[in-house]
């Protein structure tokens, strides 16, 4: 068994195991196994031990280090860690050490987590396989000849192989859920604005969202409860309150401060999600509640084109929900056929604007030249990889004079149509389910020559990003090739509570997958079989 975050923190808080010994076990495991996977770009050994020592001191003093006490966490390398390399898997940021940490990093540390390292990814999160990393591909722990998915492939592989208990990634078009599905772990994209993006290196700002990976829905819900909440440093972050009576999340009225001003006439009572408060004291309460009576739609547009073995798993998940008393029906949103096209105009357009900042002046790579314009061009040509250049070109074209309205403008209007179409369906359904990916993990090198084929692997996950909705991928057995399959649960904005509830029900109905051949299953020191099948 891979260790769970809940178990680790319980043991550390009770003083049964020290955070230092757990941290050292995981650092040793990374040292022994990561050569096979390349999930990590930077291992923060010294820093991690310092953090663990600090937590052990708190426990000794009788203080509570928080709900993630001593839990090893891996962080995608596009999240800023003060003084520690943050490369986005790009040559252009190869030596960059940010002068500040992301809000999510601070929140994890305040909750007692121990950050063990920074994980590999597609350069600037652009890709679906982690093959676009400037520092080498990450391998799928279930089959080293297959990709782990992407762009957060390093985080997914680290959790799947037990080299980290949980991890953070970012999801712009499926970059958490797709690798989670291909590596057999749980991965979740929160509602747009639910988690602060301060310190996330921007890719496509109207789509990017940070979210957790874990081996269980409970762990993912726990991490989500720690990182969610309003942050004045991110103007897109939402002010959300939890209604104590219904357990649902509601937007706080505009103008109400994140802290204080509680209990105005319009605002339901309940804890505010803000910088220093967790929405839920523990992840558990998120999973409570019945499935009986829920109205669930199987979304045709993300399911019917999937491979037959993937489709069968979705049907099995649907049947399990029926047996728990939910009403399950097929539902169609034909407008979703336009989602991929809209995404591959909007995301590159925003990327071309966000990546204009890499000009060789303030930080990152500089390739010298006689004048400033040549210096910028040489720096960008030398520092960016081919997929990043391709997206910058696409986006520059979509935004250029004469094409702006036909491409970017039209794509944003299509997005509004999708939002309306989802809203209409959610009048009749509480959540939707479907495939996370069209098929199980593809081979390393299989799609690198054909960008459009690679983009099509995101077709099931992109709709939730365009709509700003939460979605989660839950492992559900294996495909015909023995590789992991993910079932996706989609919910409307702020629908995380019902989404987690359905995800937990699907998880308990799933045939569990054996741990991957490359796996560290000894995090708590309970067992001694390290790396089954790899002597």
């Amino acid at each position, binding site marked *: 068994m891979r260790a769970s975050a809940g178990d680790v923190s319980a043991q550390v808080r009770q003083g049964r195991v020290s955070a230092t010994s757990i941290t050292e076990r995981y650092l040793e495991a990374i040292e022994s196994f990561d050569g096979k996977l390349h999930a990590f770009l930077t291992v923060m050994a010294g820093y991690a031990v310092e953090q663990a020592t600090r937590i052990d001191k708190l426990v000794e003093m009788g203080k509570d280090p928080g709900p993630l006490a001593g839990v090893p966490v891996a962080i995608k390398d596009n999240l800023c860690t003060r003084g520690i390399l943050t490369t986005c898997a790009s040559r252009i940021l190869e030596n960059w050490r940010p002068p500040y940490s992301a809000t999510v990093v601070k929140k994890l540390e305040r909750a007692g987590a121990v950050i063990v390292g920074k994980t590999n990814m597609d350069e600037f999160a652009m890709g679906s396989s982690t093959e676009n990393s400037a520092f080498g591909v990450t391998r799928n722990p279930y089959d080293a000849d297959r990709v782990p998915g992407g762009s957060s492939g390093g985080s997914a592989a680290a959790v799947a192989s037990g080299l980290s208990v949980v991890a953070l990634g970012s999801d712009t078009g499926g970059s958490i859920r797709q690798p989670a599905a291909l590596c057999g772990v749980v991965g979740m994209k929160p509602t747009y*604005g639910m988690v602060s993006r301060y310190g996330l290196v921007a890719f496509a700002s109207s789509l990017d969202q940070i979210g957790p990976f874990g081996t269980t829905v409970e762990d993912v819900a726990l991490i989500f409860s720690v990182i969610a909440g309003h942050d004045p440093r991110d103007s897109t972050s939402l002010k959300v309150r939890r209604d104590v009576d219904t357990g649902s999340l509601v937007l706080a009225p505009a103008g109400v401060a994140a802290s204080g001003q509680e209990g105005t006439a319009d605002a339901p009572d309940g804890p505010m999600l803000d910088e220093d408060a967790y929405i839920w004291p523990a992840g558990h309460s998120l999973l409570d509640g019945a499935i009986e009576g829920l109205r669930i739609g199987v979304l045709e547009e993300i399911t019917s084109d999937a491979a037959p073995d993937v489709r069968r798993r979705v049907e099995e998940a649907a049947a399990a929900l029926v047996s728990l008393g939910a009403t399950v029906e097929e539902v169609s949103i034909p407008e979703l056929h336009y989602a991929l096209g809209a995404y591959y105009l909007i995301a590159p357009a925003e990327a071309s604007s966000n990546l204009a900042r890499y000009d060789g002046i303030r930080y990152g790579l500089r390739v010298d030249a006689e004048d400033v314009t040549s210096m910028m061009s040489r720096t960008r040509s030398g520092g960016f990889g081919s997929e990043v250049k391709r997206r910058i*070109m696409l986006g520059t074209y979509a935004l250029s004079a004469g094409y702006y309205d036909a491409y970017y403008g039209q*794509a944003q*209007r299509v997005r509004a149509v999708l939002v309306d179409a989802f809203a209409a369906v959610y009048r009749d359904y509480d959540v939707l389910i479907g495939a996370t990916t069209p098929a199980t993990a593809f081979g390393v090198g299989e799609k690198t020559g054909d*960008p459009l084929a690679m983009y099509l692997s995101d077709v099931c996950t992109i709709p939730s990003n*365009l709509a*700003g909705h939460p979605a989660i991928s839950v492992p559900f057995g294996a495909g015909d090739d023995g590789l992991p399959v993910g079932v996706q649960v989609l919910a409307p904005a702020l629908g995380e509570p019902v989404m987690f509830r359905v995800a937990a029900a699907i998880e308990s109905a799933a045939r569990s997958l054996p741990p991957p051949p490359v796996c560290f299953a000894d995090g708590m020191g309970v067992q001694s079989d390290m790396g089954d099948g790899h002597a």
Partner: protein
Amino acid sequence: MDKDDLADTPGNRISREQVAHIARLARLDLSDEELDIYTDQLCAVLDHAAQVSSIDTSSVSAASNPLSAANVVREDRPAACIDRDEVLSMAPEAEDGMFKVPRIMEDEP
């Protein structure tokens, strides 16, 4: 739709010259080989993306933030910020508390 608008219709094949022009706008030096590859690949992706033009969007306005279109303001209050020297320490070149760049203007005789 008048004649000028036809130039805006997605789906027209993008030329190698256009790709070279875009590369200049994006401050990217591309080799001849890269220009050929990107011309083909951009055409393939734009052909697919052009599907967005076939959906009727006359009833909606463009959405950038799907949840909240409200502007966000804060009080203009001084607060601590990141130390200047720490920021400049990551710059490729800095001098006297400033970023240093190559020559921008021609030398005057």
